[in-house]
């Protein structure tokens, strides 16, 4: 998918994360800030990049401010932000690109 316009998903509540996607400059440009970066930084980054890959996003600036969200939450917030950037609200590919 192509990031059409800036979009946000999630909150800054504890155990959540806020994901912002914007049109990129030809590659994935990830800015990650996490309350648990020392313990889970690699894992969080992996989840974000895998989710983008699954959604076929190859060109985006993505900013994640994580407040200790579980992997499933991070995945859901990234998916939501990407679909919002495309204006997609229904007929989401449950069981497909969204696992």
């Amino acid at each position, binding site marked *: 998918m192509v990031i059409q316009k800036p979009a946000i998903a999630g909150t800054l509540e504890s155990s959540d994360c806020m994901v912002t996607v914007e049109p990129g400059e030809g590659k994935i440009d990830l800015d990650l800030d996490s309350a648990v970066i020392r313990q889970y930084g690699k894992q969080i*980054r992996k989840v974000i990049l895998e989710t983008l890959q699954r959604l076929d996003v190859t060109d985006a600036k993505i900013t994640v401010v994580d407040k200790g969200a579980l992997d499933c939450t991070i995945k859901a917030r990234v998916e939501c932000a990407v679909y919002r950037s495309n204006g997609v609200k229904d007929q989401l590919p449950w069981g497909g690109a969204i696992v």
Partner: protein
Amino acid sequence: MKNAVGRDIPDEILKLTGKEPFQGNNYKNGVPFRRVAPIIRPVMDNEHSKLVKDIHEALVKCKAHSGMTVSFHHHFREGDLIVNMVMEEIHKMGLKNITLAATSLGKAHDPLVPMIEDGTITRIEASGVRGKIGQAISDGKLKGLAIMRSHGGRVRSLVTGETKVDIAFIGAPTSDDYGNLRGIGGKTNCGVLSYSHVDGDCAEYVVAITDCLVPFPNFPAHISMTKVDYVCVVDAIGIPEKIATGAAKPTTDQRKLMMAEYCTQVVVNTPYFKDGFSYQTGVGGASIASTISLTKIMEERGIKMGFGVGGLTKPMCDLLDRGMVRVLMDTQAFDLDAVSNVINPAHHRITAGAYANPFNKGAFVNKLDYVILASLEVDVNFNCNVVVGSDGVITGAQGGHPDTAQGAKCTIVICPLLQGRIPAICTNVTTVTTPGESVDIVVTDYGVAVNPNRHDLLEALEKADCVPLKTIEELRDIAYSIVGEPEPVEFEDRIVGIIEARDGTIMDVVRQAKPYKFDD
């Protein structure tokens, strides 16, 4: 060298501090030592005045100098104004290399960070450090070491002479002009002055600071004029509302209520729960809820508590008012209800030494049946960490954790399995503050684990079939299955702090935090 909890204590630190590595709880049991005696400057002249006009004059009269050690108590908790007030004056006088030996430091003391950066304060000894000072120490800004010791351990360090206090500043809610000090009666009541007794006994100079000067004699004195050199009157010594900052209100959090219920079931189904039992608990939401639900069962079964001890809160004072506990022994008032409850004749003030000093002829903690504690982390060896956050930054205090945990017959640690994404039950705690040999039962929202060394307790709980029993490894595995196994936090080589065991040996070291960066 590896100590008894498997922590590597580098030789350089043993050499630098002259300390031994921790060798087990009772290593120093019965080992004789001589208490140090303080230097006294007798007051015989009946015209002698102890009143000084300000902190500056007190410092001059007490021969304040670079390299000295100054001490403070934390009975005003987050409402404390004394430490900053005195340190600002010391800073103005241009003194350097000060050792700050407070009983504890909190967010109220954030303004001291620039004094750490400019070398005014180069060593800190405290129960622990919260707020920006903790971050500053972890960032390596303190030139010397930070020594974190328990409340009992602090008393030991003063009476053995390991910590030599040059000037003790005792914030006193009321004082007369001769230095009879009380914890109540003024504008900034804190109830008790327990932590400062030992400073009165051991410091070379003792300065009382009050905002309420009362007629002589201010009696019964909690700290006697016989130990006080000077009295300084200031506008305010503390902010009363902030004494209770951080103290929990009765919780409605279902997870905490469930842990409280598990904890209560553990207490009532273990053999020490009988008429006259003794009990200490903390200020956490689950601990307070547990005290409340325990009270119901005590009423049903006609069981009364013999004594309650420690930092006290409203639910404990309610027990006293309702005749459910014979006496309360108070070392610290955590909320204003506890402060005002000290007027009850069965609510006794005790010194921090009587409470927890491992180096006297027996402290109150030794007579505890139950203590209910919290912990940031507990590992599969039942070691607890209450000082350093899982991110490696100093963020808490030992308090009476190691003291009560060793003393009590049944030590129960309540902690939720997960704190956000951080697993509280883990393979290895970040730093050890309380050794696993002191910890008997861990209560989480996912089940209860009993230390395998306590098969008596395990048997009792199995028989009662009252809580979901798990092994500590099972609890860790549940945690890791939800949040993933954390990467080990990386540190710089430099040691910035020591976690001291009760007996003065080294339990663990704290290293400088390393800024996180991805490998690639």
